[in-house]
């Protein structure tokens, strides 16, 4: 079974049924499967802060949301994470492609990679770094933890996790 399928299975198993996505090459497989998964309402968004708004609304409407995005977008979501998701105490699992790590071909991606963990630390967001393919086995526990804690959590998935470089 592909890693992408394992991620989606983990989400579905833990009753995540509303997913918003902003694409990344590394996440293309997950997004494709999400779009075909009948248990999940997939609402693509144009920007990640908009997506977090959709997730907040879906949560208050009784659904279990998740956002799938690239780490470069963390910069544009800092205010939304602080003043919406954290301030109102809402759960939000974030599955994030960790561009700019070993194997990266685009130098500019490194510029946000160096800030990624620092931003998450500064925001006091519990962060799980998936580096080896087997790390995917933790996804269920992380989703469960996120909805228990009513906080955002970040899963950073780097190039090595997605099959090497």
């Amino acid at each position, binding site marked *: 079974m592909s890693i992408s399928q394992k991620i989606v299975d983990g989400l579905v198993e833990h009753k995540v049924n509303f997913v918003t996505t902003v694409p990344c090459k590394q996440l293309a497989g997950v997004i494709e499967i999400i779009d075909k998964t009948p248990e999940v309402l997939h609402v693509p968004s144009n920007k990640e802060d908009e997506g977090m708004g959709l997730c907040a609304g879906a949560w*208050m409407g009784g659904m279990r949301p998740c956002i799938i995005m690239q780490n470069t977008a963390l910069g544009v979501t800092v205010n939304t994470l602080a003043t919406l998701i954290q301030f109102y105490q809402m759960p939000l699992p974030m599955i994030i492609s960790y561009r700019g790590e070993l194997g990266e071909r685009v130098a500019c991606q490194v510029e946000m990679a160096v800030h990624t963990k620092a931003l998450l630390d500064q925001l006091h967001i519990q962060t799980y770094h998936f580096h080896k393919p087997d790390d995917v086995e933790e996804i269920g526990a992380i989703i469960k933890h996120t909805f228990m804690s009513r906080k955002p959590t970040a899963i950073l998935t780097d190039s090595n996790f997605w099959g090497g470089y």
Partner: protein
Amino acid sequence: MIRSEVFKTLIPLISDQLVVCNIGLPSQELHMMDDQPSNFYMLGTMGLASSIGLGLALAQKQKVIAIDGDGSVLTNLGTLPTIANNPASNFILLIIDNGSYGSTGDQPTYAGRKTSLARVAEACGCDNVIECKAEDTAKVMEAALKGDQMTIIVCKCKSGNVPVPVIEMDAPVIKHRFMQEVKRRNA
């Protein structure tokens, strides 16, 4: 008419509806005039009222009114294609378009100059966009509430504010109260 006067005409219609209200003075005015558990007040995060409203409308069956402003829609213009392409028949987006950033000192927005938000919404693919004068907003809202079609209302009103107290309620309390109400109405 200024925004608070438009609110006065709307309250008999929206008091018993699920309302997601924009940050700053709009939320403070609604809270002062007609605080309800069915109101979700945004205390931060400019621009996301329409996104939260759409997410809520897609997630459950009750009607949802998102009250937004022209400045806030401009800051999150990407919301309009998302709304157009994920239509929720229970969703009404009311854009109070007073051509200014009311909460920050009435600086002019581009919506008060050359940009038509109604035409932007139409160009984004929204099917049922109605621009109206402030005085007609209640009538248009009444029809939208009776109908079964997603509606975008652009209410053209005057710029201006009334003195209002800040909202003292804690954010998680606003959320909890609102979620209980959503749950009760969907039971």
